């Protein structure tokens, strides 16, 4: 059955074509049914292939399926081929599984939207691109999926294109991603020139055959990571993700939490053999990840927009994943990717449910005390928050702990400390969100309160499913302190991931777990003090440290700095070029060409009399001359 894995991306693209062509004519019920079924079919095939993979010996991996030869240009040969191994299995299960739940949730969330078919077309196309990204067996095809998800992200962020801010956010995401893509493309070209192939198997063979020097690995590793910072929203290219919250909430959940943003992490994990050659590149990845984790978490502390808090939280959590990959614990990074997919999409969908209940309200200062109105949203939300905060026995605890332990074990104490700092902030802002939204005084707008209602089951049911996974998903990989050989997840990924784990003593590991739990509890406690028991404290603090508060509230003025540093010069320069070069040189040349063609045409048009006999005569003369030339 495993050889059917190439069918996985087939269903969503088929559905995309049908919806794109006939979408406006089909009834809403059918559209949602087809879109969900397509993703579910992918999920089912992924599951079947995954089960088949468990029975397959490691020597047969990865399973390859070449569908057709795609590009043939001399030495440059690219096959349209898919592969399936344990890393791909994990990714396809996450993408299609979480994607399916979000599709179901969208049925309720988008029910009243007029572009229903367009939404599901994009969603299916997105699922397809993401599946292509994780299943391709070479970098070029992966790049196609990579660009595909970028395109879908643009389309979905700007889905409500009538809204100026939404279409701008879409463009921002697209352009910022281009910068990263340039790095990725350069890396692909370097690899091709050096190795002569872009197939993963060929690259890995070249690495094991010592064809690659550490310096080259560092160069390519950093270029690849530049691509990853774009897609996975790391410093310095994270600026697009908070703005991407302009899209519909299911999109934020699907793209900006569960799937697309993890593409960078996946790519680094996929190229782990390359990174294992270069400690420099690995350290850069880990450091950028750790800095992003802290930086983004600190920005989330003061935000009042419920989705923006979650957006910064996503950036921060992606930082953790890169810490895992950077310190060589790729399995831990992928493990966090996997647990994060559940609890972050849960949080986003629950936030969407809150917005739905409050007729689109995003400002947390206008919420509060919602617990008794929205119980079926509150409890999943709470579970998600506990999971992300790192309280023991929920999924987020296991994965974050695995990453931080690996960072410590590798001796990267700075990264570890930054990770712990980020963990305090994570617990704080998540519970700040919970307390401000669901507890305390009601600060609702009277108009919003009138329409206050719990979301329909089609939206709350996915929340329940995701909440269940947010609790149990972590049990596939337990830390060593609970017993030997409980790291089932890591062992499953072993055929793909060649990193070597560092070991530390059990006592040390207990200590690290204790520290991370303690900081999580500390963060929650501070949030409780600030927003439940002594609610005057936050504003006092803000007054005491006005500079710090404003810095955080305005997100370190990064957008403003980018605007002044890159955007304004580009705009000014373009204007200058437009005025002096475009208008004069290019337009002049184009108009001149047109005018001269016109003149020649006028000159020659006397031959065109419109009389059929004249044409025939010219034709005859031509025939006679040609025949004469051939004969004599």
């Amino acid at each position, binding site marked *: 059955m495993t050889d059917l894995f190439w069918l996985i991306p087939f269903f969503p693209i088929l559905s995309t074509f049908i919806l794109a062509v006939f979408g406006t004519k089909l009834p809403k019920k059918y559209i949602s049914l087809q879109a969900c079924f397509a993703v579910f079919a992918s999920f089912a095939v992924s599951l079947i292939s995954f089960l088949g993979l468990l029975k397959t010996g490691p020597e047969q991996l990865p399973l390859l399926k070449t569908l057709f030869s795609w590009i043939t240009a001399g030495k440059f040969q690219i096959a349209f081929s898919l592969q399936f191994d344990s890393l791909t299995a994990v990714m396809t299960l996450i993408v299609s599984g979480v994607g399916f739940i979000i599709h179901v949730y969208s049925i309720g969330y988008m029910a009243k939207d007029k572009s229903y078919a367009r939404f599901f077309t994009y969603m299916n196309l997105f699922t397809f691109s993401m599946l292509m990204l994780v299943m391709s067996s070479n970098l070029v095809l992966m790049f196609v999926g990579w660009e595909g998800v970028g395109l879908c992200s643009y389309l979905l962020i700007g889905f409500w294109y009538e809204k100026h801010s939404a279409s701008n956010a879409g463009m921002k995401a697209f352009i910022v991603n281009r910068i990263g893509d340039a790095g990725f493309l350069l890396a692909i070209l370097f690899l091709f020139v050096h190795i002569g192939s872009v197939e993963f198997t060929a690259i890995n063979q070249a690495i094991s055959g010592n064809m690659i020097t550490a310096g080259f690995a560092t160069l390519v590793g950093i270029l690849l990571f530049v691509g990853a910072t774009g897609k996975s929203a790391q410093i310095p290219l994270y600026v697009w993700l908070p703005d991407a919250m302009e899209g519909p909430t299911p999109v934020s959940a699907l793209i900006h939490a569960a799937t697309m943003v993890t593409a960078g992490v996946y790519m680094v994990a996929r190229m782990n053999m390359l990174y294992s050659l270069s400690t420099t590149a690995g350290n850069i990845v880990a450091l950028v990840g750790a800095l992003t984790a802290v930086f983004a978490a600190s920005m989330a502390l003061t935000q009042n927009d419920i989705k923006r808090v979650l957006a910064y939280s996503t950036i921060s959590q992606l930082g953790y994943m890169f810490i895992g990959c950077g310190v060589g614990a790729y399995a831990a990074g992928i493990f966090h990717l996997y647990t994060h997919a559940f609890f972050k999409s849960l949080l986003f969908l629950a936030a969407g449910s809150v917005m739905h209940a409050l007729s689109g309200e995003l400002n947390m200062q206008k919420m509060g005390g919602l617990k008794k109105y929205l119980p079926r949203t509150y409890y999943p939300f709470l579970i998600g928050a506990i999971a992300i905060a790192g309280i023991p026995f929920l999924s987020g605890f296991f994965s974050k702990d695995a990453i931080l332990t690996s960072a410590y074990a590798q001796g990267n104490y700075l990264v570890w400390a930054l990770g712990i700092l980020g963990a305090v902030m994570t617990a704080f802002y998540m519970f700040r969100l919970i307390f401000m939204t669901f507890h305390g005084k009601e600060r609702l707008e009277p108009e919003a309160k009138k329409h206050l209602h719990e979301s329909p089951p089609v939206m709350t049911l996915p929340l329940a499913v995701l909440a269940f996974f947010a609790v149990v998903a972590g049990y596939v990989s337990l830390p060593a302190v609970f017993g030997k050989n409980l790291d089932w997840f890591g062992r499953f990924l072993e055929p793909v991931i060649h990193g070597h784990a560092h070991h530390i003593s059990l006592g040390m590991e207990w200590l690290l777990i204790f520290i991370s739990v303690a900081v999580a509890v500390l963060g929650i406690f501070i949030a409780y003090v600030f927003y439940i028991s002594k609610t005057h404290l936050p504003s006092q603090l803000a007054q005491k440290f006005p500079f710090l508060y404003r810095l955080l509230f305005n997100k370190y003025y990064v957008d403003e700095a980018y605007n002044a540093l890159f955007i304004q010069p580009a705009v000014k320069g373009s204007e200058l070029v437009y005025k002096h070069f475009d208008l004069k040189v290019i337009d002049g040349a184009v108009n001149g060409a047109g005018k001269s063609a016109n003149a020649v*045409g006028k000159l020659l048009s006397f031959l*065109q*009399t*419109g009389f*059929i*006999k004249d044409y*025939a*005569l010219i034709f005859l003369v031509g025939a006679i001359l040609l025949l004469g030339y051939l004969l004599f």
Partner: protein
Amino acid sequence: MIPTSYFIVLSALLFVLGIVAFFVKKDLITQFLSIEVMLNAGNLAFIAFAKAHGLIEGQIIVFFIITVAAAEAAVGLAIILLIYKQKKTIKSEDVNLMKG
């Protein structure tokens, strides 16, 4: 057996007569008829060479030419009718809509 050259000379003669007819005639219909003469002259050459080479393919080509000529006559005559409807004339000298 009659020499092939006889047929070819006849074919060339008919072809040139067709050309001359095309220029001599003034109405579109007869000009169209002259084109049919030229086509037939071509057919004659094909058949003659088919015979000379002992190859039946020449006759098959003629078969196709006749089919295409039928299609061409139908469309051509429809166009002539249309021109007549609009201009109330079929003189080729009165039709020069395509003048540049």
